[in-house]
Protein backbone atom coordinates (compact mmCIF):
# COMPACT_ATOMS: atom_id res chain seq x y z
CA UNK A 1 0.00 0.00 0.00
CA UNK A 2 1.42 3.31 -1.08
CA UNK A 3 0.97 6.02 1.53
CA UNK A 4 -1.81 8.36 0.42
CA UNK A 5 -0.63 11.84 -0.42
CA UNK A 6 -2.66 14.99 -0.08
CA UNK A 7 -2.09 18.22 -1.97
CA UNK A 8 -1.75 21.30 0.22
CA UNK A 9 -1.38 24.92 -0.72
CA UNK A 10 0.16 27.37 1.66
CA UNK A 11 2.35 30.43 1.65
CA UNK A 12 5.93 29.60 2.42
CA UNK A 13 8.31 32.47 2.95
CA UNK A 14 6.06 34.75 0.94
CA UNK A 15 5.56 32.40 -1.99
CA UNK A 16 2.51 30.33 -2.79
CA UNK A 17 3.47 26.68 -2.82
CA UNK A 18 1.60 23.51 -3.58
CA UNK A 19 2.97 20.43 -1.97
CA UNK A 20 1.92 16.80 -1.80
CA UNK A 21 2.47 15.27 1.63
CA UNK A 22 1.48 12.00 3.23
CA UNK A 23 -1.98 12.38 4.77
CA UNK A 24 -1.64 13.67 8.30
CA UNK A 25 1.96 14.81 7.82
CA UNK A 26 3.36 17.36 10.19
CA UNK A 27 4.65 20.66 8.90
CA UNK A 28 8.14 19.51 9.86
CA UNK A 29 7.83 16.44 7.63
CA UNK A 30 6.43 18.48 4.77
CA UNK A 31 9.13 21.13 5.03
CA UNK A 32 12.01 18.69 5.25
CA UNK A 33 10.99 15.69 3.18
CA UNK A 34 8.67 17.21 0.60
CA UNK A 35 10.04 20.72 0.20
CA UNK A 36 13.68 20.20 1.31
CA UNK A 37 13.43 23.32 3.42
CA UNK A 38 15.92 22.16 6.02
CA UNK A 39 16.48 24.95 8.54
CA UNK A 40 13.78 23.53 10.82
CA UNK A 41 15.34 20.60 12.69
CA UNK A 42 13.97 17.42 14.22
CA UNK A 43 15.42 17.46 17.71
CA UNK A 44 12.71 15.60 19.60
CA UNK A 45 9.49 15.45 17.54
CA UNK A 46 7.65 16.03 20.82
CA UNK A 47 7.49 19.81 20.87
CA UNK A 48 9.92 20.09 23.76
CA UNK A 49 13.28 21.08 22.29
CA UNK A 50 12.28 23.97 20.03
CA UNK A 51 14.71 23.20 17.19
CA UNK A 52 11.83 22.99 14.69
CA UNK A 53 10.27 26.35 15.61
CA UNK A 54 8.81 28.26 12.63
CA UNK A 55 6.35 31.14 12.26
CA UNK A 56 2.74 30.38 11.41
CA UNK A 57 0.92 33.59 10.54
CA UNK A 58 3.69 35.43 12.33
CA UNK A 59 3.52 33.45 15.56
CA UNK A 60 6.17 30.91 16.53
CA UNK A 61 4.89 27.33 16.61
CA UNK A 62 6.44 23.87 16.70
CA UNK A 63 6.59 22.52 13.16
CA UNK A 64 6.68 19.00 14.62
CA UNK A 65 3.30 19.46 16.35
CA UNK A 66 1.60 21.37 13.56
CA UNK A 67 -0.22 19.40 10.90
CA UNK A 68 0.39 20.54 7.36
CA UNK A 69 -3.36 20.34 6.84
CA UNK A 70 -3.74 23.04 9.46
CA UNK A 71 -1.46 25.35 7.43
CA UNK A 72 -3.67 25.16 4.35
CA UNK A 73 -4.12 28.76 3.23
CA UNK A 74 -1.91 30.11 6.00
CA UNK A 75 1.53 31.70 5.94
CA UNK A 76 4.58 29.77 7.13
CA UNK A 77 7.97 31.36 7.57
CA UNK A 78 11.23 29.54 8.12
CA UNK A 79 14.71 30.92 8.59
CA UNK A 80 15.26 30.63 4.84
CA UNK A 81 12.69 33.39 4.42
CA UNK A 82 13.88 35.64 7.21
CA UNK A 83 17.50 36.23 6.33
CA UNK A 84 16.68 39.54 4.68
CA UNK A 85 14.73 40.84 7.65
CA UNK A 86 16.46 43.74 9.41
CA UNK A 87 15.57 42.66 12.94
CA UNK A 88 16.59 39.09 12.19
CA UNK A 89 19.84 40.21 10.61
CA UNK A 90 20.64 42.25 13.71
CA UNK A 91 19.89 39.29 15.97
CA UNK A 92 21.99 37.04 13.76
CA UNK A 93 24.94 39.39 13.89
CA UNK A 94 24.79 39.61 17.67
CA UNK A 95 24.54 35.82 17.94
CA UNK A 96 27.59 35.41 15.72
CA UNK A 97 29.60 37.85 17.76
CA UNK A 98 28.46 36.98 21.28
CA UNK A 99 29.34 33.30 21.25
CA UNK A 100 25.66 32.38 21.36
CA UNK A 101 26.23 29.92 18.52
CA UNK A 102 28.01 26.69 19.27
CA UNK A 103 26.81 23.53 17.53
CA UNK A 104 24.04 25.57 15.88
CA UNK A 105 21.33 22.92 15.95
CA UNK A 106 19.07 24.96 18.24
CA UNK A 107 20.08 28.33 16.79
CA UNK A 108 17.36 28.79 14.17
CA UNK A 109 14.60 28.08 16.69
CA UNK A 110 16.21 30.38 19.25
CA UNK A 111 16.39 33.21 16.73
CA UNK A 112 12.79 32.80 15.60
CA UNK A 113 11.58 32.91 19.21
CA UNK A 114 13.76 35.95 19.85
CA UNK A 115 12.53 37.68 16.69
CA UNK A 116 8.94 37.37 17.83
CA UNK A 117 9.81 38.60 21.32
CA UNK A 118 11.38 41.77 19.97
CA UNK A 119 8.27 42.42 17.94
CA UNK A 120 6.08 42.40 21.04
CA UNK A 121 8.64 43.84 23.45
CA UNK A 122 11.41 45.88 21.78
CA UNK A 123 13.35 46.42 25.02
CA UNK A 124 12.99 43.24 27.02
CA UNK A 125 14.71 42.69 30.35
CA UNK A 126 17.13 39.78 30.63
CA UNK A 127 14.49 37.87 32.62
CA UNK A 128 11.94 38.45 29.86
CA UNK A 129 14.39 37.16 27.29
CA UNK A 130 15.06 34.06 29.35
CA UNK A 131 11.34 33.42 29.70
CA UNK A 132 10.74 33.90 25.99
CA UNK A 133 13.55 31.47 25.15
CA UNK A 134 12.65 28.88 27.76
CA UNK A 135 11.06 26.72 25.08
CA UNK A 136 14.28 26.46 23.11
CA UNK A 137 16.74 24.03 24.62
CA UNK A 138 20.40 24.72 24.06
CA UNK A 139 22.80 22.14 25.44
CA UNK A 140 26.02 23.92 24.48
CA UNK A 141 26.09 27.54 25.59
CA UNK A 142 24.49 27.58 29.02
CA UNK A 143 22.26 30.36 27.55
CA UNK A 144 24.26 33.27 28.90
CA UNK A 145 25.71 34.34 25.56
CA UNK A 146 22.37 33.84 23.81
CA UNK A 147 20.68 36.21 26.26
CA UNK A 148 23.57 38.64 25.74
CA UNK A 149 22.99 38.50 21.99
CA UNK A 150 19.24 39.11 22.17
CA UNK A 151 19.64 41.98 24.62
CA UNK A 152 22.46 43.44 22.55
CA UNK A 153 20.36 43.29 19.40
CA UNK A 154 17.38 44.85 21.18
CA UNK A 155 19.53 47.69 22.40
CA UNK A 156 20.99 48.32 18.96
CA UNK A 157 17.56 48.20 17.32
CA UNK A 158 16.05 50.62 19.81
CA UNK A 159 18.66 53.26 19.02
Amino acid at each position, binding site marked *: MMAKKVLHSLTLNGEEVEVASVAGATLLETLREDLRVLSSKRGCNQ*GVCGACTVLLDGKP*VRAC*LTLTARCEGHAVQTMEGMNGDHVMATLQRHMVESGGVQCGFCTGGVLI*SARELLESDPSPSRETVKTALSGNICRCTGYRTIVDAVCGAAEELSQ
Partner: protein
Amino acid sequence: MTEVFNPETVEEAVALLAQHGEAMPLSGGATLIAMRNAALVEPSHLISLDRIPDLRGISRDDGGGIRIGAMTRHFETAACVELTGSLQVLRRAAGMIANRVVRNMGTMGGSVANADPAADYLPALSCCDAVLEIAGPDGRRTLSIHDYIEDWYETALEEGEIITAITLPAPVEVSSTYRKIARVSGDYATASCAMALDPDGQGLRVAIGACGPGPLRDRAGEKALRGKLDDPSAVSEFTSRLVALADPVDDVRGSAEYRLRLIPRLVTSVLSELTTQKEMA
Protein backbone atom coordinates in the same frame (compact mmCIF):
# COMPACT_ATOMS: atom_id res chain seq x y z
CA MET B 1 -1.16 7.91 7.99
CA THR B 2 -4.01 9.98 9.28
CA GLU B 3 -6.74 11.66 7.32
CA VAL B 4 -7.43 15.20 8.48
CA PHE B 5 -10.78 17.01 8.29
CA ASN B 6 -11.31 20.71 8.83
CA PRO B 7 -15.01 21.17 9.70
CA GLU B 8 -16.33 24.70 10.11
CA THR B 9 -19.18 24.09 12.54
CA VAL B 10 -19.56 22.17 15.77
CA GLU B 11 -22.31 20.07 14.27
CA GLU B 12 -20.13 19.11 11.33
CA ALA B 13 -17.31 18.14 13.68
CA VAL B 14 -19.60 16.03 15.84
CA ALA B 15 -20.99 14.32 12.76
CA LEU B 16 -17.50 13.53 11.46
CA LEU B 17 -16.52 12.05 14.80
CA ALA B 18 -19.59 9.84 14.75
CA GLN B 19 -18.91 8.80 11.20
CA HIS B 20 -15.34 7.57 11.69
CA GLY B 21 -14.84 5.07 14.48
CA GLU B 22 -11.16 5.68 15.13
CA ALA B 23 -11.40 9.44 14.69
CA MET B 24 -10.15 11.84 17.32
CA PRO B 25 -10.86 15.53 17.71
CA LEU B 26 -7.75 17.68 17.29
CA SER B 27 -7.47 21.06 18.94
CA GLY B 28 -4.05 22.72 19.32
CA GLY B 29 -2.10 19.52 18.79
CA ALA B 30 0.46 20.24 21.48
CA THR B 31 -0.27 16.93 23.20
CA LEU B 32 -2.15 14.83 20.68
CA ILE B 33 0.34 15.24 17.83
CA ALA B 34 3.22 14.60 20.22
CA MET B 35 1.51 11.36 21.22
CA ARG B 36 0.89 10.45 17.61
CA ASN B 37 4.52 11.17 16.70
CA ALA B 38 5.49 8.69 19.41
CA ALA B 39 2.95 6.14 18.07
CA LEU B 40 1.05 6.20 21.36
CA VAL B 41 -2.12 6.98 19.48
CA GLU B 42 -2.73 6.13 15.84
CA PRO B 43 -6.01 7.74 14.87
CA SER B 44 -7.29 6.95 11.39
CA HIS B 45 -8.90 10.39 11.20
CA LEU B 46 -8.28 13.66 12.95
CA ILE B 47 -11.11 16.14 13.12
CA SER B 48 -9.43 19.50 13.47
CA LEU B 49 -11.47 22.03 15.44
CA ASP B 50 -9.28 24.86 14.26
CA ARG B 51 -11.67 26.39 11.74
CA ILE B 52 -14.80 26.50 13.84
CA PRO B 53 -15.46 30.16 14.72
CA ASP B 54 -17.88 29.19 17.50
CA LEU B 55 -15.08 27.64 19.50
CA ARG B 56 -13.00 30.78 19.57
CA GLY B 57 -12.84 33.83 21.72
CA ILE B 58 -13.44 34.92 25.29
CA SER B 59 -16.72 36.69 26.03
CA ARG B 60 -18.70 38.02 28.97
CA ASP B 61 -22.35 37.23 29.55
CA ASP B 62 -24.94 39.61 30.98
CA GLY B 63 -24.30 38.45 34.52
CA GLY B 64 -20.58 39.09 34.18
CA GLY B 65 -19.76 35.42 33.78
CA ILE B 66 -16.96 34.59 31.38
CA ARG B 67 -17.12 32.13 28.55
CA ILE B 68 -13.84 30.85 27.13
CA GLY B 69 -14.13 29.11 23.76
CA ALA B 70 -12.54 25.70 23.80
CA MET B 71 -10.07 26.62 21.07
CA THR B 72 -8.74 29.61 23.04
CA ARG B 73 -5.01 29.24 23.10
CA HIS B 74 -3.00 29.41 26.31
CA PHE B 75 -1.34 32.68 25.35
CA GLU B 76 -4.75 34.30 24.92
CA THR B 77 -5.90 33.13 28.33
CA ALA B 78 -2.62 34.20 29.89
CA ALA B 79 -3.08 37.68 28.43
CA CYS B 80 -6.82 38.02 29.11
CA VAL B 81 -7.47 41.15 31.17
CA GLU B 82 -10.99 40.00 32.01
CA LEU B 83 -9.56 37.31 34.25
CA THR B 84 -9.16 39.38 37.37
CA GLY B 85 -9.56 38.76 41.09
CA SER B 86 -10.94 35.32 41.76
CA LEU B 87 -10.16 34.34 38.16
CA GLN B 88 -6.57 35.58 38.24
CA VAL B 89 -5.65 32.02 39.21
CA LEU B 90 -6.63 30.78 35.75
CA ARG B 91 -4.66 33.46 34.00
CA ARG B 92 -1.60 32.61 36.05
CA ALA B 93 -1.98 28.90 35.38
CA ALA B 94 -2.22 29.57 31.64
CA GLY B 95 1.00 31.57 31.75
CA MET B 96 2.86 28.69 33.38
CA ILE B 97 2.00 26.03 30.84
CA ALA B 98 5.05 24.70 29.00
CA ASN B 99 6.63 27.68 27.25
CA ARG B 100 5.82 30.65 25.08
CA VAL B 101 5.79 28.72 21.80
CA VAL B 102 3.64 25.87 23.06
CA ARG B 103 1.29 28.45 24.60
CA ASN B 104 0.76 29.74 21.06
CA MET B 105 -0.53 26.31 20.10
CA GLY B 106 -2.23 24.57 23.01
CA THR B 107 -5.89 25.25 23.80
CA MET B 108 -7.94 25.18 26.98
CA GLY B 109 -10.44 22.72 25.54
CA GLY B 110 -7.69 20.40 24.39
CA SER B 111 -5.97 20.46 27.73
CA VAL B 112 -9.18 19.84 29.66
CA ALA B 113 -10.23 17.05 27.30
CA ASN B 114 -6.84 15.36 27.62
CA ALA B 115 -7.30 15.43 31.42
CA ASP B 116 -3.64 14.99 32.28
CA PRO B 117 -3.64 14.99 36.08
CA ALA B 118 -0.40 16.98 36.11
CA ALA B 119 -1.55 19.68 33.70
CA ASP B 120 -2.21 23.19 34.96
CA TYR B 121 -5.76 24.10 33.96
CA LEU B 122 -7.77 21.53 35.90
CA PRO B 123 -6.84 22.68 39.42
CA ALA B 124 -7.29 26.31 38.40
CA LEU B 125 -10.70 25.60 36.84
CA SER B 126 -11.72 23.60 39.89
CA CYS B 127 -10.78 26.54 42.08
CA CYS B 128 -12.94 28.76 39.85
CA ASP B 129 -15.93 26.37 39.96
CA ALA B 130 -15.93 26.27 36.17
CA VAL B 131 -18.60 24.64 34.05
CA LEU B 132 -17.91 22.84 30.78
CA GLU B 133 -20.07 23.21 27.71
CA ILE B 134 -20.16 20.00 25.74
CA ALA B 135 -21.52 19.07 22.33
CA GLY B 136 -22.11 15.55 21.14
CA PRO B 137 -24.24 13.29 19.02
CA ASP B 138 -27.06 13.70 21.53
CA GLY B 139 -26.92 17.48 21.51
CA ARG B 140 -25.43 19.95 23.93
CA ARG B 141 -25.06 19.79 27.69
CA THR B 142 -23.16 21.41 30.52
CA LEU B 143 -21.14 19.76 33.26
CA SER B 144 -19.55 21.06 36.45
CA ILE B 145 -15.78 20.74 36.51
CA HIS B 146 -16.23 18.93 39.82
CA ASP B 147 -18.09 16.10 38.10
CA TYR B 148 -15.75 15.90 35.16
CA ILE B 149 -12.83 13.68 36.18
CA GLU B 150 -13.80 10.08 36.79
CA ASP B 151 -10.48 8.32 36.99
CA TRP B 152 -6.91 8.49 35.65
CA TYR B 153 -7.33 10.04 32.21
CA GLU B 154 -10.99 9.05 32.32
CA THR B 155 -13.57 11.80 32.09
CA ALA B 156 -17.31 12.20 31.88
CA LEU B 157 -16.88 13.13 28.23
CA GLU B 158 -18.68 10.49 26.19
CA GLU B 159 -17.39 8.97 22.96
CA GLY B 160 -17.98 11.44 20.16
CA GLU B 161 -18.38 14.47 22.43
CA ILE B 162 -16.24 17.59 22.32
CA ILE B 163 -15.83 20.44 24.75
CA THR B 164 -17.05 23.66 23.17
CA ALA B 165 -16.43 26.16 25.95
CA ILE B 166 -15.51 26.64 29.57
CA THR B 167 -17.66 29.06 31.54
CA LEU B 168 -16.65 30.81 34.72
CA PRO B 169 -18.67 32.71 37.29
CA ALA B 170 -18.21 36.47 37.25
CA PRO B 171 -14.91 37.43 38.86
CA VAL B 172 -14.99 38.95 42.33
CA GLU B 173 -12.31 41.21 43.69
CA VAL B 174 -10.29 38.83 45.83
CA SER B 175 -6.77 37.48 45.70
CA SER B 176 -6.18 34.28 43.83
CA THR B 177 -3.09 32.61 42.51
CA TYR B 178 -1.59 29.47 41.08
CA ARG B 179 1.69 27.93 42.11
CA LYS B 180 3.36 24.85 40.79
CA ILE B 181 6.32 22.80 41.83
CA ALA B 182 8.03 21.45 38.71
CA ARG B 183 11.51 20.10 38.03
CA VAL B 184 12.33 22.74 35.46
CA SER B 185 10.54 25.66 33.89
CA GLY B 186 7.74 24.44 31.64
CA ASP B 187 7.57 20.90 32.98
CA TYR B 188 4.29 19.38 34.08
CA ALA B 189 3.59 19.85 37.77
CA THR B 190 5.02 17.56 40.41
CA ALA B 191 2.34 19.17 42.53
CA SER B 192 0.42 22.39 42.13
CA CYS B 193 -1.96 24.57 44.09
CA ALA B 194 -4.71 26.86 42.87
CA MET B 195 -6.15 29.11 45.56
CA ALA B 196 -8.58 31.98 45.90
CA LEU B 197 -9.62 33.78 49.07
CA ASP B 198 -13.27 34.41 49.83
CA PRO B 199 -14.38 38.01 49.27
CA ASP B 200 -14.38 38.68 53.00
CA GLY B 201 -10.95 37.14 53.41
CA GLN B 202 -12.35 34.66 55.94
CA GLY B 203 -12.24 31.56 53.81
CA LEU B 204 -10.60 30.04 50.78
CA ARG B 205 -11.09 27.77 47.83
CA VAL B 206 -8.18 25.52 47.00
CA ALA B 207 -7.51 22.81 44.46
CA ILE B 208 -4.39 20.69 44.40
CA GLY B 209 -3.06 19.38 41.10
CA ALA B 210 -0.99 16.32 40.19
CA CYS B 211 -1.81 14.43 43.38
CA GLY B 212 -4.60 12.22 42.14
CA PRO B 213 -6.62 11.49 38.99
CA GLY B 214 -8.12 14.96 39.15
CA PRO B 215 -7.75 18.12 41.21
CA LEU B 216 -8.19 17.64 44.96
CA ARG B 217 -10.92 19.88 46.24
CA ASP B 218 -12.49 19.52 49.67
CA ARG B 219 -15.45 21.86 49.75
CA ALA B 220 -16.67 20.60 53.12
CA GLY B 221 -13.24 21.17 54.56
CA GLU B 222 -13.18 24.68 53.10
CA LYS B 223 -16.46 25.39 54.84
CA ALA B 224 -15.11 24.14 58.16
CA LEU B 225 -12.04 26.30 57.75
CA ARG B 226 -14.00 29.51 57.23
CA GLY B 227 -13.06 32.12 59.78
CA LYS B 228 -10.04 30.14 60.95
CA LEU B 229 -7.46 30.97 58.30
CA ASP B 230 -5.14 32.39 60.92
CA ASP B 231 -5.47 29.33 63.12
CA PRO B 232 -2.54 27.04 62.29
CA SER B 233 -4.15 23.97 63.77
CA ALA B 234 -7.31 24.48 61.71
CA VAL B 235 -5.24 24.94 58.56
CA SER B 236 -3.26 21.87 59.44
CA GLU B 237 -6.44 19.88 59.95
CA PHE B 238 -7.67 21.10 56.58
CA THR B 239 -4.46 20.11 54.79
CA SER B 240 -4.56 16.69 56.47
CA ARG B 241 -7.97 16.16 54.92
CA LEU B 242 -6.53 17.09 51.51
CA VAL B 243 -3.67 14.66 52.04
CA ALA B 244 -6.19 11.96 52.87
CA LEU B 245 -8.00 12.67 49.59
CA ALA B 246 -4.80 12.41 47.59
CA ASP B 247 -3.82 9.39 45.56
CA PRO B 248 -0.55 10.47 43.99
CA VAL B 249 1.63 8.47 41.61
CA ASP B 250 5.31 7.65 41.89
CA ASP B 251 6.89 8.89 38.69
CA VAL B 252 9.94 10.59 37.25
CA ARG B 253 8.74 13.94 38.60
CA GLY B 254 8.66 12.79 42.19
CA SER B 255 7.56 10.05 44.51
CA ALA B 256 4.07 9.74 45.92
CA GLU B 257 5.56 10.40 49.34
CA TYR B 258 7.07 13.69 48.19
CA ARG B 259 3.76 14.77 46.69
CA LEU B 260 1.95 14.03 49.94
CA ARG B 261 4.59 16.04 51.74
CA LEU B 262 4.14 18.96 49.34
CA ILE B 263 0.38 19.33 49.77
CA PRO B 264 0.35 20.98 53.23
CA ARG B 265 3.51 22.93 52.48
CA LEU B 266 2.04 24.33 49.26
CA VAL B 267 -1.27 25.25 50.88
CA THR B 268 0.41 26.96 53.82
CA SER B 269 2.86 28.83 51.65
CA VAL B 270 0.31 29.97 49.04
CA LEU B 271 -2.14 30.96 51.78
CA SER B 272 0.45 33.10 53.45
CA GLU B 273 1.29 34.68 50.10
CA LEU B 274 -2.37 35.54 49.45
CA THR B 275 -3.09 36.88 52.93
CA THR B 276 0.05 39.01 52.80
CA GLN B 277 -1.10 40.34 49.42
CA LYS B 278 -4.48 41.14 50.90
CA GLU B 279 -2.97 42.95 53.86
CA MET B 280 -0.75 44.97 51.60
CA ALA B 281 -3.72 45.85 49.41
